[in-house]
């Protein structure tokens, strides 16, 4: 069980999927010979041939449209959107088509496609290489949304997404591709080497969609997070000196509400962190659910620590990013109000 970075784990998952199922085909911009701008598909064309792994035109709408058709034919397309910021030209095919094909045809056709897209900030990518659009898609009935936070989950969740017969958006926290990141951008970069979650099992395994993970058990306050923010939340709790329970949602839709509610019923406090803009982000849904189901247990208002309601500004990335300091401050305020 060698340690793997998240990008290696994703590459490994794709490798396993290609070997396991003839129907899996991978395409997207620069994913073929080159192996993808983040190297997620490195060597895969070489290994499985051009008919299994190939480049696509710069046309996200076309890529998803073709994937829907390939899925209807009987293939199991795994497509890459180079940055989540570039998913919007494909919105119609995702929302009007992929999400509703099974429903509108009463099960005659379905859409077993996986849409991989690096998301989130932290690489000085500015407004068009940093976005977190998961909230938008979580509103759409018929789409599943998955976001891993560790190499081993990335592999298991990606394999589960590919196995799934419904369309899955698989957003990959690009800031975690090569190492864990706790939000301290000034600290030296660390790699996944030696990290416990970088132990990635060989071969095929899945992490079931719809099950959250308690990333850190605790008693004082529940923090709901996913992707990069799981690591940031853990660091923030430590810095606030709180025994926080950090829940890594892993799947936004379908959501593991049981794990969430149990935790909040226990701690009586709930903070939600995400990098996406605040208004109508997925944190809103989480807050709405938690207040509804844990109302009488809550000792303080649920807080959201998120990206601001602005585009992601290149030079102010770290002022925008909901880093450990901001989270810790909010956590402290929450429990003080006790």
């Amino acid at each position, binding site marked *: 069980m060698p340690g793997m970075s998240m990008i290696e784990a994703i590459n490994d998952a794709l490798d396993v999927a290609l070997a396991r199922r003839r129907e899996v085909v991978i395409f997207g911009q620069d994913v073929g010979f080159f192996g993808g701008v983040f190297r997620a598909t490195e060597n895969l064309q070489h290994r499985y041939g051009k008919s299994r792994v190939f480049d696509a*035109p710069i046309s996200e709408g076309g890529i998803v449209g073709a994937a829907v*058709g*390939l899925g209807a034919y*009987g293939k199991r397309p795994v497509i890459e959107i180079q940055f989540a910021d570039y998913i919007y*030209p494909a919105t*119609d*095919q995702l929302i009007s088509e992929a999400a509703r094909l099974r429903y509108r*045809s009463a099960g005659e*056709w379905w859409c077993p496609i996986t849409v991989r897209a690096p998301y989130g900030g932290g690489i000085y990518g500015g407004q068009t290489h940093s976005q977190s659009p998961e909230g938008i898609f979580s509103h759409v009935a018929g789409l599943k949304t998955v976001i891993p936070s560790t190499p081993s989950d990335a592999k298991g969740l990606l394999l589960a997404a590919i196995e799934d017969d419904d369309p899955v958006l698989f957003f990959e926290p690009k800031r975690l591709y090569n190492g864990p990141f706790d939000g301290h951008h000034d600290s030296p970069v660390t790699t996944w080497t030696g990290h416990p979650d970088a132990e990635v099992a060989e071969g095929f395994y899945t992490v079931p969609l719809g099950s959250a993970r308690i990333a850190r058990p605790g008693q004082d306050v529940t923090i709901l997070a996913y992707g990069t923010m799981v690591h940031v939340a853990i660091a923030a709790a430590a810095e606030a000196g709180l025994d926080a329970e950090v829940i890594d949602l892993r799947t936004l839709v*379908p959501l593991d509400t049981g794990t969430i509610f149990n935790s909040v019923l226990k701690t009586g406090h709930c903070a939600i962190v995400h990098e996406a803009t605040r208004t109508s982000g997925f944190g809103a849904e989480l807050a709405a659910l938690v207040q509804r189901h844990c109302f009488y247990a809550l000792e303080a208002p649920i807080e959201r620590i998120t990206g601001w309601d602005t585009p992601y500004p290149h030079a102010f990335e770290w002022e925008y990013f909901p880093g450990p300091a901001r989270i810790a401050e909010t956590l402290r305020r929450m429990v003080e109000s006790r």
Partner: protein
Amino acid sequence: MMAGKAQDLHIPEPSIRPGGEPDFSRIDLSRPGSARRPPVDIDAAEIRDLAFGLIRVLDLDGDAFGEWDPQLSPEQLRNGLRAMMLTRAYDERMMRMQRQGKASFYMKSTGEEAVAVAATLALRKSDMCFPTYRQQGILIARDWPIVDMMNQVYSNSADRLKGRQMPVFYSSREAGFFSISGNLGTQYSQAVGWAMGAALDGDERIASAWIGEGATAEGDFHYALTFASVYQAPVILNIVNNQWAISTFAGIAGAERSTFASRGLGVGIPSLRVDGNDYLAVYAATSWAAGRARAGHGPTVIESFTYRVEGHSSSDDPSRYRPSQEPSEWPLGDPVDRLKRHLLRAGLWTEAEHETLWAELDEQVRQAGKEAERHGMLKHGARSDPASMFEDVFREIPPHLLEQRNEAGF
């Protein structure tokens, strides 16, 4: 056709609006039989002219001419005629039912039957169709039971789509008829994807897609042409140019400056323009394209030049935006009538047989209608179980939808 001065924006306008005399003088009608029929492995660059001309086989008297004559057997011809007539009879009845309040909505394909029927019968039954809402003729050409179509229109208890779709948004996997979307154009890139899948598997089946001339302005049209060209997908890309998109004439879709068939040239796809009211021309063009696709020569674009005789849908009143006599003056005639004449001329058909067939088809539709109505109609009688509305959002109902179904009291 040059624009005016830059001092104002050019806004295309049909030659005539209601109150005026229909004017089809702009239409350039080539002589039937005059277009050449190239071999299927021809390079796109050598047949660009076919995207600007008009392939015609039948003249208006019903005689067939030239290399594109598909030389169909009497039975094939009568089958085609019958499917077009049944399509028309079906449309007539369903629109009447809609007017009686039995369906919430309906869309006819009157005048465009050949574009669906001939383009289907020239394919194999196993080929996959990605239609718009105006190709009910595909299902009929494939002998799909019209009572099943009616059940869908009525959203009744026998509706296989469980009341989820508006009328005429059929789906039949068995008939190779892809689930109709409401969002224009999306089926086009999907068809190319399906065809890519077939090519990957060495499957002999090909895909055929239809789009209205108005919807060619959507991104999916461009995606489909690009992907089909790049990957040489075995797909036929039909453009149904029926001159109108609801109230908007084809000039607003770009018809003033070029043909729709010519859209294919920019990505090097062989592109044909055919008389869409000429059953034989549509059949022949489709056969040619299917032959190309099946032999591994990739996609073909076919513009069928036709005319939308009726309103856009049951919600539309075309007399508000075009002269009401326009349909009857359309110079390319009626596809049913033209194929009938051809059969008559060839001595394969009589007026009496024609009358009998109409009566028979009307009766067939009436019987099917009665059967369908026994299963209910949207606002009267049985529907599917409302609890089923929570199914098929996902393959398995996830917990939050189970809760919601509960909340809904089902």
